[in-house]
C-alpha cells in the first residue's frame, strides 16, 4: 500500500496533484458546464491520452514522434469499425443495393463485407485491437528505427511521413475505409445509444477514469528503475549502453506504451464524437498533439492534461469569436512555448512553488541554464 502511495501516486505532492485533477474532472467541470461543453471537454481529454504518451516518449525519453496521430487514428478506426457494423444492420440499410454492409461500401460497389472487417463484428476483438494494433505498429516501426539508432530529427521526420502515408492510404481506399469522409453516423454500442445525453455523461466519466488510470500507469513506470534509466538515457545514451542496457528496446517499449495510450484515446474519441476520419490521422493533428504536451510541460504528466485542455479550450473559444486570429495565436504559442517556457505550464507552476519544490525545479529546468546552478548552489542539491 505504502509502495503504491509512493510509486504510483508519487508521494504527497504527487497524490495531491492527481486528486486536484480528479476533482476538476469528476466534479467541477460536470457541475459547471452544460452537456455540450462537457462533451467537448470529453473530446479534448481523448487527445490528452496522446499528450500523456508524448510526455513519456518525448519529455522523459527524448524521442519526439510527429506521428502519434497514427496511433490515435488506428485506435479510433478499430472502435469505429465495430460501431459502424452495428449501425449498418440490414434494416438500417435496406435502401442500399447491398443491405447489411456499411453505407460507404455500398457507394463503392462493394457487395460483401471485406475480410478485414469481419472480425470487428465482435466487441472484445475490437477492444483488444484498439490497444493492440497501435502497439504492434509502434513495435515494428520502433524496432526498425531504434535498433539502427535512428533518433532525434530523423525519427521525427520519418514518423511524420508515416502519418502522411496512412492518411493518404485511408483516402485512397474508400471502399474499405470510407475515404476522406471517414466512418460516420455511429449510433449504438451493443444497442446502447451513445448519442443520448446520459450516454455522453457516462462516456465522459469513463474517459476521465481511464485517463487518470493512464497517468497513474505512467507515474508507476517513471517511478521504477526504468524511469531513472530513461532520464539517464536522455543524458548519456552511450553510458547507459555500456552499463549493459539494450537502449533500443527501452525506447521501443516507451513508444509502444505511448502508442497504446493514444489508441485508447482514439477509441474514446470515436465513442464520444460519433465518427472518425483521416483528418485525425494526418500530419497536422499529430503535431498539434505535440504542442498540447509542450504547453503543459513536456515532462509533466498532469501538465499534459492541463495543456490539452487549455489549448483546445482556447481553440474553441477563439474560433467562435475571431477565427482569423486563431492560427496566429496557435503559431505564436508554438514559438513562445519553445523559446520562453520550455517547460510549459508545469515549469511556470514549479518556479512559483520553487521555494518548496527545488528538486522538481531542478528536474524541470534545462540542465544548461545558470539558474539551475545557482539554485543548486544554494541547496547543495539536497532534497
Amino acid at each position, binding site marked *: 500500500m505504502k509502495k503504491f502511495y509512493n510509486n504510483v501516486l508519487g508521494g504527497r505532492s504527487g497524490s495531491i496533484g492527481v486528486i486536484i485533477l480528479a476533482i476538476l474532472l469528476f466534479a467541477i467541470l460536470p457541475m459547471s458546464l452544460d452537456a455540450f461543453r462537457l462533451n467537448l471537454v470529453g473530446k479534448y481529454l481523448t487527445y490528452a491520452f496522446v499528450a500523456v504518451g508524448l510526455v513519456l516518449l518525448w519529455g522523459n525519453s527524448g524521442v519526439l514522434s510527429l506521428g502519434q496521430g497514427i496511433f490515435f487514428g488506428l485506435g479510433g478506426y478499430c472502435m469505429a469499425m465495430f460501431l459502424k457494423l452495428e449501425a449498418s444492420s440490414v434494416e438500417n440499410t435496406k435502401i442500399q443495393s447491398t443491405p447489411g454492409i456499411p453505407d460507404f461500401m455500398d457507394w463503392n460497389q462493394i457487395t460483401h463485407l471485406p475480410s478485414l472487417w469481419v472480425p470487428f463484428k465482435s466487441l472484445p476483438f475490437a477492444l483488444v485491437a484498439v490497444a493492440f494494433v497501435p502497439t504492434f505498429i509502434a513495435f515494428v516501426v520502433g524496432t526498425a528505427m531504434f535498433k539502427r539508432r535512428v533518433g532525434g530529427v530523423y525519427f521525427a521526420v520519418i514518423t511524420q511521413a508515416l502519418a502522411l502515408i496512412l492518411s493518404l492510404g485511408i483516402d485512397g481506399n474508400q471502399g474499405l475505409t470510407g475515404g476522406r469522409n471517414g466512418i460516420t453516423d455511429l449510433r449504438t454500442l451493443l444497442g446502447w445509444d451513445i448519442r443520448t445525453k446520459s450516454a455522453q455523461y457516462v462516456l465522459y466519466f469513463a474517459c476521465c477514469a481511464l485517463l487518470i488510470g493512464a497517468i497513474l500507469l505512467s507515474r508507476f513506470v517513471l517511478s521504477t*528503475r526504468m524511469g531513472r534509466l530513461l532520464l539517464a538515457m536522455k*543524458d548519456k545514451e552511450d*553510458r547507459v549502453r555500456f552499463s*549493459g542496457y*539494450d537502449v533500443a528496446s527501452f525506447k521501443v517499449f516507451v513508444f509502444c506504451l505511448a502508442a497504446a495510450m493514444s489508441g485508447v484515446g482514439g477509441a474514446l474519441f470515436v465513442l464520444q464524437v460519433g465518427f472518425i476520419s483521416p483528418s485525425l490521422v494526418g500530419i497536422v493533428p499529430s503535431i498539434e498533439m505535440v504542442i498540447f504536451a509542450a504547453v503543459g510541460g513536456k515532462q509533466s504528466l498532469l501538465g499534459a492534461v492541463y495543456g490539452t485542455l487549455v489549448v483546445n479550450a482556447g481553440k474553441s473559444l477563439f474560433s467562435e469569436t475571431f477565427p482569423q486570429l486563431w492560427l496566429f495565436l496557435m503559431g505564436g504559442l508554438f514559438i513562445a512555448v519553445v523559446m520562453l517556457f520550455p517547460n510549459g505550464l508545469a515549469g511556470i507552476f514549479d518556479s512559483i512553488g520553487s521555494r518548496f519544490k527545488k528538486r522538481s525545479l531542478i528536474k524541470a529546468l534545462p540542465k544548461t541554464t545558470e539558474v539551475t546552478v545557482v539554485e543548486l548552489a544554494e541547496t*547543495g542539491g539536497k532534497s
Partner: protein
Amino acid sequence: MSETNFLLAIEDLTVSFDGFKAVDGLNLYVARNELRVIIGPNGAGKTTVLDLICGKTRATAGSIKFKNCELLGMAEHKIVHSGVGRKFQTPSIYENLTVFENLELSYPSGQSVFGTLAFRRTAEVIARIEEVAESIYLKDQLDIEGAFLSHGQKQWLEIGMLLMQNPEMLMLDEPVAGMSPAEREQTAELLKKICENRSILIIEHDMDFVSRIAHKVTVLHLGKILAEGSMAEIQNNEKVQDVYLGH
C-alpha cells in the same frame, strides 16, 4: 590461434575510416589480473582500440577474443554482460541523478525492459552500492546529484559504476585527467586495489602515473604497436623516444 589462456586476445585488428587506417593489423594480448597501460601520441588510435573492444566502433577486419569468445559483431550490452567495463575519456555520468542512483543503475541485475520495471531496491543492492561508494571515496556524497561533483570525483564515480558491474576486464580512458596530485594518489591506490581480481586496460598520458601503476606498457603509433614491455624497457627504446618521448 583459437584457444588462449589470455583474457583478451586481439589479432590483426584493423579499422579504416574512408581509407584512413586508425588501427592497422593490431595484435594485443592481455593476461588475467594484468594492469596494462596503452600510451602513444595523439591520433595513435588508443581510444579507437577501446571503442573497438566494447563495440562502439565496428572493426573492418581481425578478431577480438574475450575469454575465447568473439566480441566483434556482438551488441554493446552483451559485451558488457560478458564482463567488459569501459570508462570514457571525459567523465560520463548522469548529471541529474544522485551518486546513489548513478551507481544503482549500473547494478548488473534486472537490466531487461521488464526487469527494470520489477527491480526493487533490496538491502543487498544498497549494501553493494555503499561498499563501492566506500572504495571510490564517495560514501558521503551518495545523495548529491552527479552535476555537483568535482571533476576528479566524477572520474571516480564512473569507475565506481563500472565496479558495480564487477567486470573481469576494466577499460579506462585517461582516468586521472584533470585530477589533483592528491586525487591521483588515491586513484593509484584504487586501481591497485581493484585489479587484484580483474584485468585493467588503461590509456594514460601522465608518464610517472603510468610508471607507478603499469605492469606492462604498450606503445601505439599510427594504429600499429611500436613497442611493448615494462616501463623501463619502453623508456630506453629509442624508436619510442623518437616518435613519442622525444618531443
